[in-house]
């Protein structure tokens, strides 16, 4: 039993990332009808927003400290961080430690802007072209973004630590009445899970309870009629693209402490997120979220030692296996709507 709880917990954070990316993918697909292969790259850009923020916050300059001397007897040069100069020692240190959460503030406008630029600059011209062309051009864009990131940050993963307040682990078993140390769960993963639940709830609430969201939903159902009612639906869809980019971005920011960002992580997540979207049902937002968590948890179940002993290698292929079975038995995915992407 405790093993199962551990696996569910382990699956949740990965599942949250899948769900957030798949949610963005589905928003873009549902509104604009575009299959966005560059969405993983947006996730990766978010993660690098965290890297950039922590770099900016730890910009330092050299100050001569007259009280200390180096081994040659000269006055010692000490690296001083600007934030510490401005906000004082302790506050500066806190700001630097909390770089990742602060990065969200930085990432949201950046990612919305990137989303707007992508939609207006490139994707707009591909609405009338076949899906294959959309896949190809966004795939190319993903390559280019990855390479640009690689040029500036190198090919190696960059460690981006979580705030020290969250570096420990929660002894989850204690709460449930197990012995100590049986079920350990890092705080940051818990934060990630609640954070993504919050974002997902926010997106759904936005679509469900605001006028803007209502118009967007109407546009998803019947774009032309909404247009005929005198609503500039294109503008709203562009905004939704920006929103989807921001969702992917913040998902990436918060994921940076879990997996050190490298220029290739977008591609890794993209392939899996597509599988998630297809399993959930193309164009269905709840389907994408549910499938994201489901596959995340399934994946971690499959990597339980007991399961691996039974079916070696199952942890590597479980997601694809599930995807193949679902696609062949339930062509619309778990919650797909009728008539979406059915040729």
């Amino acid at each position, binding site marked *: 039993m405790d093993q199962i709880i551990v696996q569910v917990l382990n699956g949740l954070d990965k599942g949250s990332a899948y769900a957030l990316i798949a949610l963005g993918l589905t928003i873009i697909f549902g509104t604009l009808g575009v299959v966005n292969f560059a969405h993983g790259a947006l996730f990766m850009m978010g993660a690098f927003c965290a890297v950039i923020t922590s770099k900016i916050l730890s910009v330092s300059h050299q100050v001569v400290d007259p009280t200390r001397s180096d081994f040659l007897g000269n006055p010692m040069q000490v690296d001083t961080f600007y934030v510490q100069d401005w906000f004082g020692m302790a506050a500066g240190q806190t700001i630097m430690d909390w770089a990742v959460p602060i990065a969200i503030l930085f990432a949201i406008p950046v990612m919305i802007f990137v989303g707007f630029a992508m939609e207006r600059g490139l994707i707009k011209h591909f609405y009338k072209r076949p899906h*294959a062309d959309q896949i*190809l*051009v966004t795939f190319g864009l993903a*390559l280019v973004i*990855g390479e640009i990131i690689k*040029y500036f940050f190198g090919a190696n993963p960059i460690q981006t630590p979580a705030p020290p307040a969250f570096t420990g682990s929660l002894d989850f078993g204690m709460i449930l009445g197990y012995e100590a140390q049986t079920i350990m769960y890092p705080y940051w993963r818990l934060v990630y899970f609640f954070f993504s639940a919050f974002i997902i709830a926010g997106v759904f609430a936005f679509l469900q309870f605001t006028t803007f969201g209502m118009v967007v939903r109407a546009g998803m159902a019947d774009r032309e009629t909404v247009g005929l009612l005198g609503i500039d639906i294109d503008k709203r869809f562009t905004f939704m693209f920006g929103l989807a980019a921001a969702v992917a971005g913040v998902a990436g920011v918060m994921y940076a402490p879990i997996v050190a960002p490298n220029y290739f992580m977008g591609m890794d997540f993209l392939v899996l997120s597509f*599988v998630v979207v297809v399993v959930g049902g193309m164009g269905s937002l709840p389907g994408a979220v549910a499938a994201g968590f489901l596959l995340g948890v399934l994946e971690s179940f499959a990597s339980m030692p007991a399961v691996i002993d039974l079916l070696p290698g199952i942890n590597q292929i479980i997601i694809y296996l599930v995807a193949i079975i679902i696609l062949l038995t339930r062509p619309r995915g778990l919650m797909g709507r009728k008539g979406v*992407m059915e*040729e």
Partner: protein
Amino acid sequence: MFGLTRKDSKLMLIVFGLVMLAPFILNPFPEGSAMAQFNAGYPDLMQRFVIFGIFAVGFNLLFGLTGYLSFGHAAFLGIGSYAAIWSMKLVTLNVIPGILVSIVVAGAFALVVGFVSLRRSGIYFSILTLAFAQMMFAMAYSVLTPITGGETGLQIKNTDTPLFGGPADGGIGRANLFGAEMGNSYELSLGNHLFTFNLGYYIAGVFLLIAFYVSIRIFRSPFGIMLRAVKSNQQRMNYTGLTPKRYTLSAFVISGMYAGLAGGLMVAMDTQVGPERMFWTASGEVVIMTILGGAGTLMGPVLGAGVIKYMENIISKINKDILHEWFAFMPDGFEDVIVALVYPFIGKGWHLTMGILFMMVVIFLPGGLVEGGQRIAKLFRRNKTSDTQDATSRTPAE
């Protein structure tokens, strides 16, 4: 010639000439000159041109004709490679049986994967092929280690004793063609030029010619027209009483066999396999090659494969010092600026150039480089024959 029209015969002859004279064509710069690094006429790279050309030609038979975008084709290449190396380890070091085995095995896998994947179309088909390929990659990497060698892959070792013609002295066996080793080369030096004629390359080249010939025949056959019909309107095809699945599945298997052939040749040239050649980025690469050159055209995939492999091997070698050497004639500050501007796009950044080039082609030239060439050719022709064209256009058509 061989059942080809005059135009296709001409194309076939051009390809024949290019393949046979490649060691000359790809080595235009004298040895030791500053431009010598642009020479691509060394056996290893020439083999790669040809092998990936075959791979892309096969992919084009599926994507170019039917419009089904497979994102998992590298799996068949990998399977072909594994089949070929086992044939060499167990049966004989002769490459011909190895290559035949690789074609057959890859074809069999393609039949299974295609049968399942082709039940869906569009993006679902892409995802299904991707999922199958990733599964095969993951299995080759981990579970099937006894068969695939896992992460380290397979090589021919001195403990391998093939049934026929193993090395007598207990050394490491080498791939051969009836005794002639793949690595055998004849070097011809003319003045400052050095040309290498490699046996392995020519064997691969002959296979490319056969593959290309088959591809022309398929393009021009009733079967090829059926495949195009699948792309343009599957529903109408259904109403006519035809079963698209039969044709698409045949195309899928044929293109899987092409991939298997490419994989077998890779092993024949360099007797080792690793699972990384089945990874989905490898599948992405063949997609890029085909689109870049021109999907649905005959020459496009070969051209695209050539461009990508040339960039991968030649452009990626240029470093900052070489750039400084080139732009040394400029004033000092200006030179640095130019080098700084150019540097991100070459050397290790060649992927960036490739990505941008690929995007440009998808956006502006859906027909690939071949269409670009045609457009330029048309431009010149129109200028030259503008008078005569006016005269013909005025005559009423029928």
